[in-house]
């Protein structure tokens, strides 16, 4: 079941679905991808860049093989997100916003993903890990 680009009448409406399609291919939105999308929608590059950089899940820089996203919002913060951040930091020797030298993991903090009843929660790529404790981090990261 693919996320096909819907054939909605206005070409500008295709912009976000096209960008997400590019993201699915490369894991980020490259300049080449933005140029191709600009071409297809008839929009100037600056407009495509402006829309792309507005969204949190359309990064314009290349990501590592695995992206770790730790939720830092209130319910997760109350239930120990800081401990999870610290244990990932200790395990991989990188701080939020950084990536491992071997390109295996990048680490970022994100806003609420709606898993508050399983707080603290993180995502690694598309996989959700909830009800986490710092001692589970090592085994989880080893499986990647």
């Amino acid at each position, binding site marked *: *079941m693919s*996320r096909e680009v*819907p054939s*909605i009448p*206005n070409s*500008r*409406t*295709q*912009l*976000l*679905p096209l*960008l*997400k399609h590019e993201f699915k291919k490369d894991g980020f939105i490259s300049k080449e991808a933005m140029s191709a999308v600009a071409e297809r*929608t008839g929009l100037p590059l600056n407009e495509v860049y*402006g*829309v792309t950089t*507005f*969204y*949190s*899940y*359309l990064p314009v820089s290349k990501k590592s093989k695995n992206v770790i996203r730790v939720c*830092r*919002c*209130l*319910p997760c*913060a*109350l*239930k120990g997100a800081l401990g999870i951040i610290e244990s990932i930091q200790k395990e991989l020797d990188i701080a939020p916003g950084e990536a491992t030298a071997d390109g295996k993991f990048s680490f970022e903090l994100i*806003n*609420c*993903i*709606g*898993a*508050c*009843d*399983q*707080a603290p929660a993180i995502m690694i790529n*598309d996989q*959700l890990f909830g009800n986490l404790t710092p001692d589970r981090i090592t085994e989880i990261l080893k499986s990647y």
Partner: protein
Amino acid sequence: MAEKRIVLSNCEEIDPDNIETYLARDGFKAFERARHRMKPKDIVAEIKKSGLIGRGGAGFNCGLKWEIALNTKAKNKYLICNADEGEVGAFKDKYILQHNPFGLIEGMCIAGLAIGAQQAYIYLRTEYGFLYDHLYRAVAQARERGYLGQMDILVFEGAGSYICGEESALMNSIEGYRGEARYKPPYPPTHGLWGMPTIINNVETLMNVPHIIAKGAAWFNKMGTDRSKGTKVFSVSGDVKNPGVYELEMGSSLKELLDLAGADDVKGVQIGGSTGSILPASLLNTPLSHETYLGCGAVVVFNSTRDIIDIVYNNICFLSEESCGKCTPCREGTEVMLEIFGRLSRLEAEHANIKALEDVAKTMAVASLCGLGQAAAVPVLDSLKYFRDEYINRIEQSVFMRSYLGGEMSKA
């Protein structure tokens, strides 16, 4: 008081991947009634009479919105189901989408008949992208059985932006623009998507529709309070034993909800997400409705070990990151408030900070372009009202640290 599962009545009772299990429990009977035995204006009248108000947080009269859209002449009309659920502590729509997408689709089909829409979108937040295929399949099954005759449904996925849950930013997002807010008027029911009449309803709002059409407005009316009829689905998290989704009649007290969720040590709660009211434990008997405190129904509980300043700091951090950046009060104001909370957190604050917070918050509340900026003031002003002593405490500690370190700002 026990839960009253009406919106959630089929959740965990049907197979959410098989429409037959929904049909076996009277699914789409309300739609058939609306399609064959009611005119659009009758459907609108019934929803109006029921008193159904929006469940996404704004609480606007649903039937009234539909009536305006129905009566606006236009070439195309659109229906949007707002499944962006970006509010901190909200996960009720996720639960609904996971366990009963068919109820939503039925509600959307009835809404489509009422306003005369030819195209509908489910704006699904990207963080719920794992539900895309699931929703797609549910829509396909409904389409196969001919329920989507006059109005097709498309799932439109977002890309990570809380403000895109705000209706005007949502429309900009679908249209391919940055998710900036739009000024109002005009309102979506007259000028929405591509300038056409558009109805935007929350997932839970639409879930109520088949029940109202099947059992009647009078039945719905009997539940709830004067202005908030029916039930509300709450999502409770934080310092509680049983975080999760609970459905109670509107007007149930906060204490009843917290008892269900297992909260024994309560210092305060935040109701409605990051821009929600912060209530101290002394107000636990408050009935929850739009007349008092509700928002989208996200309830985060904090116990006596928690610091209110840290909680509001967390809220403002979120809001400044998610502000679309179009209007001055919100774009600059959230950042200014964030700077002050940083200093409160590092014990580098001063007494003038409180007036600064109040001035910025009050200006944002009256001058911001959309609800995000307007409501960002709420947690700040509420915490200053109920927990002022915590702020004073931090400031006095800051003053002490400065004098103790000989007049230099603490770097700790």
